[in-house]
């Protein structure tokens, strides 16, 4: 199994390290050609969502990534990556990939002074450490989306079929369980998928 990690800007190396810890190979996606290599799953890392959306467009990768996700490519977005997936960002005009039926609030906890860490329950995993850095949270989800974690009354993790999104950064902790969960997701969709991407 190989996972592609969007490496336009942000904390992508941290994801590579988590995957290598659980024995999964990965590579960095920096330009259009990289999308033509084979990969079974995609990680959209933390960083600045404005920068990633801009570069996805300017480097002519936007439509390709979007249609791959719509066609069932397993994807995992953390923080900025979650904003990239959201169909709606309620407090900002963002032209995101808009593939997941969630409404996200950007910089929902305020500036850096609002950043925090917590230990909380994630459905299907258990209690895990969560790091929130100028994080978004999910305001609302459609019926087809499963809520996986709620912290302080706000949705911070959710899944819709092949798409997994977290407000927090499991890649900044020592706990690899969310990455393992994503790898299981890839295995699940792989066996059931109609055509490869």
């Amino acid at each position, binding site marked *: 199994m190989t996972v592609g990690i969007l490496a336009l*800007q942000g904390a992508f190396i941290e994801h590579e390290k988590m995957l290598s810890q659980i024995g999964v190979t990965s590579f960095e996606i920096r330009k259009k050609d990289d999308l033509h290599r084979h990969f079974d799953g995609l990680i959209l890392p933390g*960083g*600045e969502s*404005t920068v990633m959306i801009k*570069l996805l467009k300017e480097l002519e990768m936007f439509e390709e990534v979007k249609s791959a996700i719509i066609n069932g490519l397993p994807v995992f977005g953390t923080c900025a990556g979650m904003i990239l997936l959201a169909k709606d960002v309620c407090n900002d005009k963002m032209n995101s990939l808009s593939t997941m039926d969630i409404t996200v609030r950007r910089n929902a906890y305020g500036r*850096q002074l609002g*950043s925090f860490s917590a230990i909380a329950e994630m459905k299907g995993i258990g209690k895990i450490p969560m*790091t929130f*850095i100028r994080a978004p949270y999910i305001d609302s989800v459609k019926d087809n989306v499963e809520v996986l974690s709620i912290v302080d009354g706000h949705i911070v993790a959710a899944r819709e079929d092949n798409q997994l999104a977290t407000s927090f950064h499991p890649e900044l902790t020592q706990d690899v369980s969310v990455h393992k969960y994503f790898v299981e997701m890839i295995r699940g969709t792989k066996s059931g998928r109609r055509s490869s991407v």
Partner: protein
Amino acid sequence: MNESRQELNRNLAQMLKGGVIMDVTTPEQAKIAEEAGACAVMALERIPADIRAAGGVSRMSDPQMIKGIQEAVSIPVMAKCRIGHFVEAQILQSIEIDYIDESEVLSPADDIYHIDKTKFYVPFVCGARNLGEALRRISEGATMIRTKGEPGTGDVIQAVRHIRMIRSEILRLHGMDESDLFEAAKELQAPYELVKYVHDNAKLPVVNFAAGGIATPADAALMMQLGAEGVFVGSGIFKSGNPAKRAQAIVKAVTNYTDAKVLASLSEDLGEAMVGINEQEINLLMAERGK
């Protein structure tokens, strides 16, 4: 500041990696920077080239001006305070700045002490010319380091010198026998624990950006290939002929910093670069401030 706050502040710097932090002086410039793909902006009244030209004492910016920039953009906003001026830092913290740059670009307020950054909740980035300076700043609580370079010159030589120096000193420590680390810590004038960390991990414990004199996409890619994790561009953008275009090109150069073909197309038709001053032509070496 407790340990978890320190960790969260290091984490924010991790999110900035692979990005470009741009100096801006007005909300309009901040918007141009954000639209061009800046991962953060540095709000200041005068960019380094103008500080250099104007001379005199240079201080923290007007909080109202910084707030205007905070309102204009959604990306993190940084601001500078003078070296050692912990009250300017307290003021910046009170307006919820995302990162404070305790910067040699401004006139130093203290020629002995840097700010005790462990007393703050907001994160600090500090400049360094070598590993000793970097580790001393980290021990004072800095959660991000940048090379000093020579701000406001458009001349990249000092930034190159500093990043090469830090890199070679890291490799030297990494290759050392563990029993030599006490002596190395003494030489570096840095705490043993940090020296040991660098020895074990062959890297700084915090993110390291390049700054000072970066004016072109090629300059930015050069710093990335030399091991910087991102770049600050100060005067290089808004002192050039076509700021928006140059800013975008530098952002893309940092993402695809090893691809010469991409870099070639990014370097085309950018208009005038900032004029620049060679290091031999300047009287004031800002990098000499705050060791």
